[in-house]
């Protein structure tokens, strides 16, 4: 069957014309601010006060340091160790949440069970909880005498007041991101595409890898990147669950604070600038990921 298709001139005119310009139909109208309309002025003023001026001030402050001196302070062993703890631990925490957040989002969307709505709400707890409270709770639970900490203590594993503690705090505070970026995409995914894949001969594994997973990768990566940048910036919970000892579990934001306490403004500014640049790079990355994720949606 179906060797030489010869259906040439079947009329499908209305259908082929139907598509022109449809995707633009519901796009918001673009306003070019030729006059200084007030929403535009307020936006610029707000962004300036909130973001641009403080950032510029910090960069200006760090510029007063000689480039060679800047480099020396930025690459001091204690600073390098702090970057290492901050970025590597944040990355590990974000990666763990990439996997666990995907699983949780999957269960919340695909499974029907009592208490689902409550669990769905609880996912946001790390967003709502003051980070100091989170740190306090985690430090209590994971300390040598804590509920979870005591399970590991006999094996000589110290959970709180170590790099492990930093990791735990970072996992906690960056947990909601992947769940929340993935959930809407999962909800929108039609289950019929799975049946379509099966009908075309795909196994359950092939269906997952080739049909279900690819559209989920961009939101998962976006969630991981958001979680990572949140973990890099985390301060309140880490300071309570870590011992904050240099070369052990000291994170860069705490290093900035410690330097300020010692009136070492220069040292604080330099490390702060390094963190600022890292955050900007991360943001660009997240933006690029989101654009990539939308490439086949209109």
């Amino acid at each position, binding site marked *: *069957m*179906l060797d030489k*298709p*010869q*259906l040439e001139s*079947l*009329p*499908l*005119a*209305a*259908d*082929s014309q*139907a*598509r022109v310009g*449809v*995707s633009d139909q519901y796009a918001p109208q673009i306003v070019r601010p030729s006059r200084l309309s007030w929403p535009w002025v307020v936006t610029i003023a707000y962004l300036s006060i909130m973001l641009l001026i403080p950032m510029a001030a910090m960069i200006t402050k760090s510029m007063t340091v000689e480039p060679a001196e800047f480099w020396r302070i930025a690459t001091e062993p204690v600073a390098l160790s702090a970057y290492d703890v901050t970025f590597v631990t944040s990355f590990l925490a974000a990666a763990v949440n990439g996997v666990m957040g995907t699983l949780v989002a999957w269960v919340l969307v695909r499974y029907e069970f009592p208490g689902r709505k409550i669990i769905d709400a609880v996912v946001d707890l790390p967003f709502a909880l003051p980070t100091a409270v989170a740190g306090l709770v985690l430090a209590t639970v994971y300390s040598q005498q804590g509920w979870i900490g005591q399970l590991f203590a006999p094996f000589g594993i110290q959970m709180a007041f170590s790099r492990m503690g930093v990791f735990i705090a970072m996992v906690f505070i960056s947990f909601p991101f992947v769940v929340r970026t993935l959930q809407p995409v999962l909800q929108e995914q*039609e289950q*019929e*595409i799975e*049946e*379509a*894949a*099966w*009908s*075309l*001969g*795909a*196994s359950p594994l*092939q269906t997952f890898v*080739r*049909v279900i997973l*690819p*559209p989920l990768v961009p939101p998962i990566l976006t969630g991981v990147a958001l979680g990572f940048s949140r973990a890099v910036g985390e301060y309140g919970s880490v300071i309570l669950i870590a011992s904050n000892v240099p070369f052990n579990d000291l994170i860069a934001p705490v290093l900035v604070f410690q330097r300020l306490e010692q009136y070492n403004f220069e040292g604080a500014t330099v490390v702060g600038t390094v963190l600022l640049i890292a955050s900007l790079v991360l943001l660009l990355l997240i933006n690029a990921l989101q654009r990539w994720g939308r490439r*086949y*949606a*209109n």
Partner: protein
Amino acid sequence: MSIIVESVSKNFGEFQALDRVSLKVKDGGLVALLGPSGSGKSTLLRAISGLETVDSGKILINGQDTTNLDVRQRNIGFVFQHYALFKHLTVRQNVAFGLDIRKRPRGEVQQRVGDLLELVQLTGLGDRYPSQLSGGQRQRVALARALAVQPQVLLLDEPFGALDAKVRKELRAWLRRLHDEVHVTSVFVTHDQEEAMEVADEVVIMNHGRIEQVGTPEEIYDNPATAFVMSFIGPVNVLPGHLGLFKTLTTQETRNSNVFLRPQDIEILEQPHPEAIPAVVARIIHLGWEVQAELALPDEHNLTAHVSREQFKSLDLRVNQNVFIKSKFAKAFPEVEVFR
């Protein structure tokens, strides 16, 4: 490849979706499963495809018992109402999906995808994503994707249901011609009687998980087997048979049953006639291509009649006018159940 369904039943909890359904679809046939929602037509289609298991009975495709085979092993093509295209893949990749799964050589896949895109008239759109296509185009991609694996049978679940009226009409005429070209045994589900009549060789009318009638569109229209069939395939007047108004039916037939007659089978006369009964025009509605007249019978029953515009003009019908009506075709059924 033929499809044989033997006494298949399926329950969803308390709900009986299929009740000992038996059906034969001959090789190369194009069959419509027609019925209201909840009639079991989609369940039957999904049971044939293997997307749904059955509680009892047998399904044979091309003589092979496939009852316990997984959907993957049945080699069927399935087209969904909402297209179910893979949004992250281009049109070409969508069509190639089944062939890639089967690990066919690259050259063969490209050749076949090219042929199929030509068949569904989407040559040149192969690198678009589904979101960049119209509904009709998406459904044609879904059709090409299903045909790519050279299925034994093609199953379509409300394939035009999500399209607007104009595209739907166009696409179903096109599907009919495509089938004449490709000859793959096809079964499609629809709740639209006009669509079933227009596209299919054979129409299967379902209700409450059972088959009411199987026949060509002509057979179904000319000789409806049940009250349900007659009332489902078009508007119909239902009158108590004891009125004995319709001389075309024998008295025996009409005594304890309902008489069904279609609006277009009612003839309106100005003069008395031995087979006609008197009526009064109660209301006139202009439908455009024809005129609908509401007629009041002496016993307070009402009838709807459709007359052509020419007839309407030559009769010069007016409200409250006394006329005589005669039925050209009517059927009597003892059953009470009617589709509304």
